[in-house]
């Protein structure tokens, strides 16, 4: 993994030199700030459950915009072939792009944590669900980044990559509603794929290790299959 640091720095520079990152973070913070204020003044309770759900839905839309260029741009510009012919392992390339894509989500999460600080200063919030909510958002962002990275590796068109990744994310988010229409045992199988079903316990403070495992599995499968997409040269 000796090249990982160099690759990560290159990807970070690529992301943060693009106006997409700043526009994305700005829009995210504007919407989140509105949600936090509205929820706080309406409910007057020291909790962030609704804020977490709002952030999760925004991640479904924002993360694919960040990940769309990770492989698609290199494939379109022909630089991917150069990268793959260099003495760098494919897994290093994938991990560097994944970490860079996730770093923007982590930045957004870090800025979102100011809401928790505000609650802590002016109130006495229940910190357990707040910690688990941020953990859930981090895992969700990581899963969406892995999915976005995989889709980006399958196409040379950034818009296609963004739209498909968004579609997959939204479908997985609300797939449990489809479960109600299916007979047993398919309803359970489909419901188990639901992102919202696995995210809700984090947001409310009822943490299950199987939910942590679910998101980690998506990340690892997404990264592994992203490596396999590099076979398409």
């Amino acid at each position, binding site marked *: 993994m000796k090249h990982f640091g160099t690759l990560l720095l290159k990807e970070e520079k690529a992301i943060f030199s693009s106006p997409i990152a700043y526009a994305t973070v700005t829009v995210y913070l504007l919407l989140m700030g509105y949600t936090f204020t509205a929820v706080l003044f309406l409910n007057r309770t020291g909790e962030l459950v609704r804020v977490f759900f709002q952030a999760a839905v925004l991640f479904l839309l924002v993360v694919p915009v960040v990940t769309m260029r990770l492989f698609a741009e290199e494939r379109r510009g022909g630089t991917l072939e150069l990268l793959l012919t260099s003495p760098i*392992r*494919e*897994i290093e390339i994938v991990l560097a792009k994944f970490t860079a894509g996730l770093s923007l989500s982590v930045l957004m999460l870090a800025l979102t944590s100011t809401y928790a600080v505000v609650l802590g200063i002016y109130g006495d919030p*229940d910190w*357990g*669900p707040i*910690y*688990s909510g941020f953990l859930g958002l981090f895992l969700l962002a990581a899963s969406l980044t892995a999915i976005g990275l995989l889709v980006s590796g399958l196409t040379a068109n950034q818009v296609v990559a963004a739209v498909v990744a968004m579609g997959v994310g939204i479908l997985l988010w609300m797939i449990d509603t489809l479960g*109600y229409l299916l007979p*047993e045992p398919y*309803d*359970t199988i489909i419901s*188990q794929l639901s992102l919202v079903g696995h995210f809700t316990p984090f947001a*409310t*403070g*009822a*943490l*299950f*290790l*199987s939910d*942590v*495992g*679910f998101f*980690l*599995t998506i990340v*690892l*499968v997404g*990264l*592994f*299959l992203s*490596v*396999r997409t*590099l*076979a*398409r*040269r």
Partner: protein
Amino acid sequence: MDRLDVVNTIWFAGWLIAVVVLFALGARLPLMPRLRRFPRLLYTGAIVVATFGLAVLANVALVLHDVHFDLTREAVFTPSKQAETVVDRLHQDVKLTYFYQGQDQAGRRARDMVEVLGRRNPRLRVRTIDPDKQPTVANTYGVRIYNAAVLEADGRRIQVMSTDENQIALGILRLVRERVTTVCFMEGHDEYPMENFEFHTHFEGVASHNHGDSSSALVQMRSHGAGRLRRALESLGYDVRKIIPATLTAIPADCAVVVDVDGGWGGDTVGRLKDNAIAVLSYPSALGLLEASWTQIGGEPSFAMIVYGERGTLIVHQPRPTREGERAGVGRVELITAAGSRFVERPALAADERDGPTHFLSCVSAGRDVTEFCAADVGCDVQETLAAALRSAETGQRVALPID
């Protein structure tokens, strides 16, 4: 954390190491970019299928050894120990569908609680539904109320109306039990009915009224105890049904316990029973039950008289005066045959006649002939029947009519 949670947490750590090692090994698999199109597709396809298969197996393994951490300050997502024990000991599949009201805090809590319970044991399959958002699903189950759990197992189905996980867990126990114990409540003889509306509270406020106010549960109303006892027994897993001894020849064999809820008329039960009498009238092709009771003031037997015949049943319903001076009329007579049930119209009393005695006195004072049900021959029959009943009670022997 109990011992099982510690073991499962260690299991999770092992699981995590295993999947990371698998990932690292998988990443070393050659990409084979120079393979021809079909072999490459086959190679990649096999790897993709194996990846998803391993991912599913890994998640199933984790779900079977799941650990729950309730991070809330008030431990709002921690079910009671009793409910957890019931779910942990489940050895057969149970489907729990909970219909909650999204606007109701207790309903939302119950939803979260059953979902937490559902993840403790794969045999308990939980589905939560907001009927306002999914009315079709609610209609499919025939559920038109909020905060109700429908429990299904082996073709059996019961409904538990509660937001308390303990009640739902007891419902599960009731569903999966192998032996049914029936508790029978006696009724029809001044006993308080077990199906009273003790759960239906009505609170009249200045601006409006409401039903089901939780504070009203503290209000003890006369006769509420019977309903509460029934609900308590049901929640403990007993089958409960009512029996009307006046219409039975013996206590049904399935009644493990017979409950006689004192109607509280005023006298003690034993004393009151001494004042009561049941005459069994045998006809060539019918059997009649005639009950006399002091308790006809206030509560009363369900029927004044009932005759079971070969071709049907004849029931004389009690006239039901509820206030002093109120017009009682005559008891309605119902005839039940294979063709159905119908009421036999009887001669109406005059407007100033309340009942039989006032009709008799009215006839005497007006100089009219006493006819109908107060006629002399009817009176003789009644007196003779009563005399026979008394003689039978004294001797313990059957008495034939007419009396010698």
